[in-house]
């Protein structure tokens, strides 16, 4: 069980480092850290399906948006408190993930990519179509009540960072525990060889649906949290761009590793942050960096570390 202890040390250590960073970073970078932590939850949700189960979805923006709109609409129109609205957002994402997962899992490989992509596209158009309530592309600002959780006003930078760190740490440790668990190992077995997993007596169809729902729920939690912490709900978060982003983050950081999503989000965020200080063509720099990474670090950063230095990395 050396690996388990190492894993505990690693994940506990990362959380401690993040807490230290949160306490010491200057305001600008502390703000960036807040955004990175919430987006990393989204990436972790994606990684659960892509990295661990081996299913490449191009429609996760649907789940992120389901959480965001489940939260935003129930708070702004339904008048729910932030806590209740958060639950509503997570429930909405779980429901959407269950429904689309049940249908999309009838397909595999590229067809699965396309079906999830089309469901997400239909979801985006639905948000626009229901513009009377969603205000379409323009989106809406959340009321102050929706941004007060357990007595903390999340409009303050400090409370927001603490909330983001708490959320991230909980999800981070939970996914770490999950990947070490029986379920996690079974999902990896499905990724490696679904046929064999089925022959060994696993109900792979049901397990894949469980993975989609878990992944979608975590993504939805991230969407709801993003709305709660930053006060805005809008259709741009449901566009195909937001389905591609988690794929990039996870591949950059290292698919199928617990730290990969955080590393990928942070890397991409600061890549754009730094390059946009030097040039307007920051997307060109980002594009060139993506190409460079696929050429020189094909398993992502965490994958590289696992290969070169720490083969035990979970």
């Amino acid at each position, binding site marked *: 069980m050396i690996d388990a202890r190492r894993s505990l040390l690693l994940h506990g250590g990362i959380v401690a480092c993040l807490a230290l960073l949160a306490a010491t970073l200057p305001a600008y970078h502390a703000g960036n850290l807040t955004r990175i932590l919430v987006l990393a939850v989204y990436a972790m949700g994606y990684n659960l399906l892509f990295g661990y189960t081996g299913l490449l979805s191009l429609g996760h923006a649907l789940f992120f948006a389901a959480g965001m709109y489940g939260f935003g609409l129930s708070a702004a129109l339904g008048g729910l408190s932030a806590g209740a609205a958060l639950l509503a957002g997570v429930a909405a994402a779980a429901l959407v993930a269950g429904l689309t997962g049940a249908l999309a899992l009838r397909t595999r490989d590229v067809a699965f990519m*396309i079906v999830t992509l*089309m469901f997400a596209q239909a979801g985006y158009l639905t948000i626009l*179509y229901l513009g009377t309530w969603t205000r379409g592309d323009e989106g809406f600002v959340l009321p102050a009540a929706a941004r007060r959780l357990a007595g903390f006003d999340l409009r303050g930078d400090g409370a927001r960072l603490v909330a983001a760190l708490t959320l991230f740490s909980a999800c981070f440790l939970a996914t770490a525990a999950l990947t070490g668990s029986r379920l996690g190992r079974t999902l990896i077995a499905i990724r490696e060889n679904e046929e064999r997993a089925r022959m060994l007596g696993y109900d792979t169809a049901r397990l894949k649906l469980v993975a989609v729902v878990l992944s979608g729920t975590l993504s939805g939690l991230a969407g709801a949290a993003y709305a709660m912490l930053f006060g805005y709900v809008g259709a741009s978060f449901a566009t195909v761009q937001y389905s591609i982003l988690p794929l990039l983050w996870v591949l950059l950081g290292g698919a199928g590793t617990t730290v990969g999503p955080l590393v990928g989000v942070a890397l991409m965020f600061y890549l754009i942050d730094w390059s946009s200080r030097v040039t307007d063509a920051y997307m060109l720099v980002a594009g060139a960096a993506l*190409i460079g990474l*696929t050429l020189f670090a094909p398993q992502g950063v965490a994958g590289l570390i696992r290969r070169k230095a720490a083969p035990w990395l979970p």
Partner: protein
Amino acid sequence: MEFGPHLMLALLEGAVTSAVLALTAMGLSLVFGVMRVVNVAHGAFFMLGAVAAWWIAQLVGAHPALGFAAALLAAPLLVGAGAMLADRLILARVGYDPERTIVATIGLMYVIEQTVLMGFGPDARPVAPPFDARIALPWVERTAEGLALYWPWGLSITAYKLFVIAAAAAILAGLWALMTRTGAGLVMRATQQDRDMARAFGVPVSRVFARVFGLGAALAAMGAVLVVPIQQAHYLMGGDPLLLSFIVVIIGGLGSLPGTVVAALLIGMTDGIVSVFLSPTLAKIVATLAVALVLVFRPQGLMGRARA
């Protein structure tokens, strides 16, 4: 407008959409089929084709038809050459690994879009169509004296749109001949079926890949040149063709050329016909879901074979 002419118009428009889509998707399908990689930069190649068409038409000046003809010949060559270069510099070096190719081509897409924004600018720029006659179409109605022809308000098409349909059909026929009647086509099909076996028989697989990738991009560029007198060149125009091409390729059945054409027709027409019955955005939602469900209940695509 009455139902009949409305439907007729929707079908005509659907046919134009399908024609361009079939060309663009065919490029993606070819790359998909032979190389087994997803080229996310396909939409960017489409956009490059449109921008190149504008640029060439500008250079040529003269009569619009001359500029357009030059663009139709030169733009696909330019874009195809660029794509072959990208294949050599990037895709070959990641060994056509499916996931790495996705990331690399996303990166390529960002690079192309940003470069075009800097060089070409953010405005939409038109290319004059080579000819542009409006053709009013008649419809029949039942009058007291029996059936009679009349010209309903708005039921029309332009000569150029008819040309787009014909040109797309001709290019696809040419591609079909290339694939089935020539040595180059044989080599591509051999590589598609079993690249290791092809290599064993002396097929220079890496050179075939570069050509297929170039040809795929050139087909996208041809679609774009045809569409640019209707639509205008814009640096973000590649998104929709990319998504639709993807859908067409998968619905058609991986790498099946006839399947791709059928799927392009299906999708172009569904979009048009549903829009006759429902409010526009709702029509888009329904059409998208309908096509997704086709795939859910026939995962191998229309013309694909079930997996072994």
